[in-house]
C-alpha cells in the first residue's frame, strides 16, 4: 500500500477564488492510501516545495499528488522536488485543477466538486504507480536549419560559432530570403544588402556550415537528439562544383519570358538564371518549365557557350540522408495574395503595387535601377498613395485576423525615402492605426510626418478607379468626417504577412504544431518562445509570427542558444514511460508493429514455457531506445499484451473508476 501525500495549491487566487481549497483537502483525507493532505498558497515556490520535502520525511510518503496547474507548467518542478526528498520522480501525479477547473468554472460549488473528482482520480492512479528510471540516448552533434533567410542564417552562424556542425536547407536557388529583396531597413535606413550579404558570405565560408540550396526536407524520423532527415536537392541542371559563375549562359539564353521572382515579377529573366548578383551559391539554375531545350529538345545554347562545360541537362535530383540532434524552423513568410481585394484593382492596374514590389523598384539593383518609376509607362510619378492594413486585421475570411506588425514602419520608411529623393512628389498614407512600438520607431514615423511632409490620413480606401491614365483613390478621412478622392500615379498596398506555404507540411513532418494561421506554435507563449512543443525543434523568425528584422535576429540567436544547450549534452535522459509487451499475452498479430510511428516495435521468435511445455512463439519486442511512449500500440493491441509504463491499462482504468465513482 502506498503512503500518499496530497498538496492542494491555491495558485494565489487563480484556484482559490473558484475552488474551496479546504473542502478538497478534507475530501482527500479519506481517499485510499492518503496519509497526509494539506494546502499552500504557492506550491511551486521554494517554501511550497519545502513543505513537500518536509512531509515526505515526516510521514514517510511513497507517492505524491499535487493539485495545481497543468502538468505542462510544473510537473518537472515537482518531480525534481520529490527526487530531492528521496521519492522516485515518477511517483508524482498532478491533478490539473486550474486550467481544467478553476479557470473555466464560475460556480464555486461546481468547481469545488470537480476539483475533488480530479484530485481523487490522481490519487487512484498514484496508488498503482511504480518507480521508473529513465534510460539515456546519444545526441547527434549536428543541427539542421530549415530556411536560409536572415533568421536561418543567424541561427546557423551562432550554432556554428559555438563549435557545432550546422546544415542549412533552403528551397530557393540562393540563400538570403526576403531580406535580400529589401532596399533600406527601418529605423536606421541602412541598406539591407550591406548588412545581409556579409552574413551570407560568413555562412557560406564557415567551416561548420554546409548549405543545401534548391533543396527541401522530404522526410523526418527520430526524436530529440537523433533526427534522421532526408533532403531532396532539386536538379539545377548545372554542375555546381565546376561552374565558375561567369554568367555567359545567362547572357546567351534565348528564353526571356519568365517572370523574375526576385524582382516580384516586375521584369523578366532568362530560363537559366541566378536570382540576384550576390546570390550564394553563385551558380545558375535552369528553370525547366521555361527552358527551350527541356520543352522542345532543341537549343542547348547555354551548354555550348559554357567554358567550364558545367551545364548538365541530364542532372537528376540528389538525395541527402543525414542525422541531426536538433532542428531549427526558419521558414519565413510571403505576402498575402490580393485576389479577394478587387476594390484596389491590384490585378488589373500595373500602377497598383505591393510594398515588396516597391522595395524592388526603390532598390538600386532592382528593375528600374533604383529610380521611382510607374510600372505602366516608366514615367516618374507625381503623387503616391499608400494603403495600410490590406488584408491584415480582417475577420471576414478574405485576409488575416492579425496585425502584420511591420507594415506601419516600412510604410513610413517608403514614404520618407520617396520624399527624401523626390521632394516634388506628394505622398499620402491611409492608416487605421499607426503602430510603432519599438526602439526609435515612433520617432521615425513622426519624422516622416513632421520633417518630410508625408500626409497621414486617418481612414481607409474604399476603392481605386483608373481615370485618364492616372488612379483616383477614394477614401475616407475620419478625423475630418469627410470623403477624399486623391489623384495618384502609384498606389502601394501594405499586403498582410502570411506564413510560408511550406510551414504546414513541415509541421506534419516534424510533428510540430501550428496555429490557425499556419504560424508555428511555441511551447509556452512567454517562457518558451523559441521552443516548439516538440522536443528538439526550435523556432526562428517570422515562421513563429510576424516580426521585424531586429526581433527576428534576436529570436534566431535565442533559438541557437537552445540548440547549443542541447548539443552540448553527450547524453539525454529518455522518457521512461515507454511501451512493453507481455510475452505470454502477445498473440503475434503485428498490429503494434504497423501502427508504431517510430518503428520501435519488431517481432522475434522466442522459446517460451507455456502450460508446462516449451513452445516457439512469435512475440512483439519494443526497442526502448526508439519508443517515445505515444501509446498507439497499447490501443491497437487485441490481446492486452502491450502496456505503457506510467500509463498502464490498470492505472487508466483506476482513474476512470475514480472519475465515475
Amino acid at each position, binding site marked *: 500500500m502506498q503512503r500518499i501525500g496530497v498538496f492542494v495549491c491555491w495558485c494565489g487566487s487563480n484556484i482559490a477564488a473558484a475552488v474551496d481549497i479546504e473542502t478538497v483537502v478534507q475530501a482527500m483525507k479519506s481517499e485510499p492510501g492518503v496519509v497526509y493532505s494539506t494546502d499552500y498558497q504557492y506550491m511551486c515556490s521554494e517554501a511550497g516545495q519545502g513543505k513537500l520535502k518536509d512531509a515526505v520525511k515526516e510521514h514517510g510518503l511513497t507517492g505524491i499528488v499535487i493539485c495545481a496547474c497543468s502538468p505542462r507548467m510544473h510537473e518537472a518542478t515537482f518531480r525534481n522536488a520529490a527526487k530531492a526528498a528521496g521519492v522516485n520522480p515518477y511517483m508524482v501525479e498532478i491533478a490539473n485543477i486550474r486550467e481544467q477547473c478553476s479557470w473555466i468554472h464560475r460556480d464555486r460549488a461546481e468547481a469545488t466538486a470537480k476539483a475533488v473528482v480530479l484530485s481523487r482520480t490522481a490519487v487512484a492512479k498514484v496508488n498503482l504507480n511504480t518507480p521508473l528510471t529513465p534510460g539515456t540516448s546519444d545526441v547527434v552533434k549536428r543541427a539542421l536549419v530549415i530556411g536560409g533567410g536572415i533568421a536561418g542564417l543567424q541561427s546557423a552562424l551562432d550554432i556554428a560559432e559555438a563549435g557545432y556542425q550546422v546544415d542549412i536547407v533552403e528551397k530557393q536557388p540562393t540563400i538570403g530570403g526576403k531580406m535580400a529583396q529589401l532596399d533600406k531597413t527601418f529605423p536606421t535606413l541602412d541598406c539591407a544588402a550591406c548588412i545581409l550579404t556579409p552574413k551570407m558570405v560568413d555562412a557560406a565560408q564557415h567551416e561548420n556550415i554546409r548549405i543545401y540550396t534548391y533543396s527541401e526536407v522530404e522526410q523526418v524520423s527520430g526524436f530529440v537528439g537523433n533526427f534522421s532527415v532526408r533532403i531532396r536537392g532539386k536538379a539545377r541542371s548545372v554542375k555546381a562544383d565546376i561552374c565558375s559563375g561567369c554568367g555567359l549562359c545567362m547572357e546567351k539564353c534565348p528564353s526571356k519570358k519568365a517572370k523574375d521572382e526576385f524582382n516580384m515579377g516586375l521584369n523578366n529573366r532568362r530560363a537559366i538564371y541566378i536570382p540576384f548578383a550576390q546570390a550564394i551559391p553563385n551558380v545558375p539554375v535552369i528553370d525547366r518549365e521555361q527552358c527551350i531545350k527541356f520543352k522542345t529538345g532543341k537549343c542547348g545554347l547555354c551548354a555550348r557557350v559554357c567554358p567550364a562545360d558545367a551545364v548538365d541537362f541530364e542532372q537528376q535530383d540528389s538525395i541527402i540522408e543525414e542525422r541531426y540532434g536538433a532542428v531549427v524552423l526558419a521558414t519565413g513568410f510571403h505576402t498575402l495574395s490580393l485576389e479577394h481585394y478587387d476594390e484596389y484593382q491590384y490585378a488589373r492596374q500595373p500602377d497598383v503595387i505591393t510594398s515588396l514590389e516597391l522595395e524592388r523598384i526603390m532598390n538600386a539593383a532592382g528593375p528600374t535601377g533604383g529610380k521611382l518609376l510607374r510600372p505602366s509607362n516608366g514615367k516618374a510619378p507625381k503623387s503616391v498613395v499608400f494603403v495600410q492594413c490590406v488584408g491584415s*486585421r480582417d475577420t471576414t475570411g478574405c485576409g488575416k485576423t492579425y496585425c502584420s506588425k511591420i507594415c506601419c514602419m516600412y510604410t513610413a520608411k517608403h514614404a520618407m525615402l520617396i520624399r527624401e529623393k523626390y521632394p516634388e512628389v506628394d505622398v499620402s498614407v491611409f492608416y*487605421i492605426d499607426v503602430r510603432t512600438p519599438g526602439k526609435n520607431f515612433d520617432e521615425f514615423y513622426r519624422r516622416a510626418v513632421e520633417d518630410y511632409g508625408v500626409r497621414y490620413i486617418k481612414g*481607409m480606401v474604399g476603392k481605386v478607379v483608373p481615370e485618364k491614365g492616372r488612379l483616383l483613390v477614394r477614401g475616407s*478621412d*475620419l478625423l475630418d*468626417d469627410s470623403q477624399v478622392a486623391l489623384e495618384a500615379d502609384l498606389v502601394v498596398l501594405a499586403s498582410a504577412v502570411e506564413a510560408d506555404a511550406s510551414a504546414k507540411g513541415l509541421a506534419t513532418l516534424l510533428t510540430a504544431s501550428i496555429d490557425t494561421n499556419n504560424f508555428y506554435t511555441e511551447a509556452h507563449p512567454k517562457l518558451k518562445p523559441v521552443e516548439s512543443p516538440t522536443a528538439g525543434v526550435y523556432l526562428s523568425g517570422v515562421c513563429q509570427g510576424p516580426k521585424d528584422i531586429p526581433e527576428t535576429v534576436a529570436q534566431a540567436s535565442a533559438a541557437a542558444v537552445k540548440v547549443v544547450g542541447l548539443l552540448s549534452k553527450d547524453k539525454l535522459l529518455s522518457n521512461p514511460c515507454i511501451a512493453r509487451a507481455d510475452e505470454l499475452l502477445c498473440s503475434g498479430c503485428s498490429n503494434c508493429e504497423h501502427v508504431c510511428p517510430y518503428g520501435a516495435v519488431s517481432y522475434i521468435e522466442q522459446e517460451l514455457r507455456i502450460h508446462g511445455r516449451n513452445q516457439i512463439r512469435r512475440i512483439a519486442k519494443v526497442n526502448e531506445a526508439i519508443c517515445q511512449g505515444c501509446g498507439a500500440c497499447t490501443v491497437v493491441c487485441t490481446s492486452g499484451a502491450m502496456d505503457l509504463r506510467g500509463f498502464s491499462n490498470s492505472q487508466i482504468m483506476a482513474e476512470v473508476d475514480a472519475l465515475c465513482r
Partner: protein
Amino acid sequence: MHQNNNYLVETAAQISGVNPKSCMKCGKCTASCPAFDDMDLSPHMFVSMVEAGRIRELMESTSLWKCLSCFACVERCPRGVEPSTLMEAVRLMVIRKQGGHRISADEIPELLDKRIPQQALTSAFRKYSR
C-alpha cells in the same frame, strides 16, 4: 408608444444580427459610400452611434433614407460589421413605429431615374412598404 433606450439597442441588434463592437474604426464604409454627400451622418458614425446606444438620434437622421442599400460597405468591411444592414434595421424600427406604406408601386414610374440600379428598387420596396 414609449420605447426605452435598452429596448431600442436590443431591437437594432436583433433585427440586424450585427455586433457593432467588432468595428475597428477603419472608415472603409465611409470611404466606399456612394451616397456620402447626401448624408448627415457618415456610415462609420452610424456604426459607432449604434454602439453608443444613440439609436433615437439615428432614427431621426436623414442618412437613414439616403442609404442606397448598395451594400458596398457590407462587401468591403474587413470586420464583417455590415453598416448597411444596421441602417436597414434602424429604418425598419422607424417604419414599424409609423405603420402603413410610405411608398406604393403606382408612385414608382414617376420617381424612376435611369441610373438607379435594379437592386436599389427592390431595396426601396423593402424599405418603404410594410
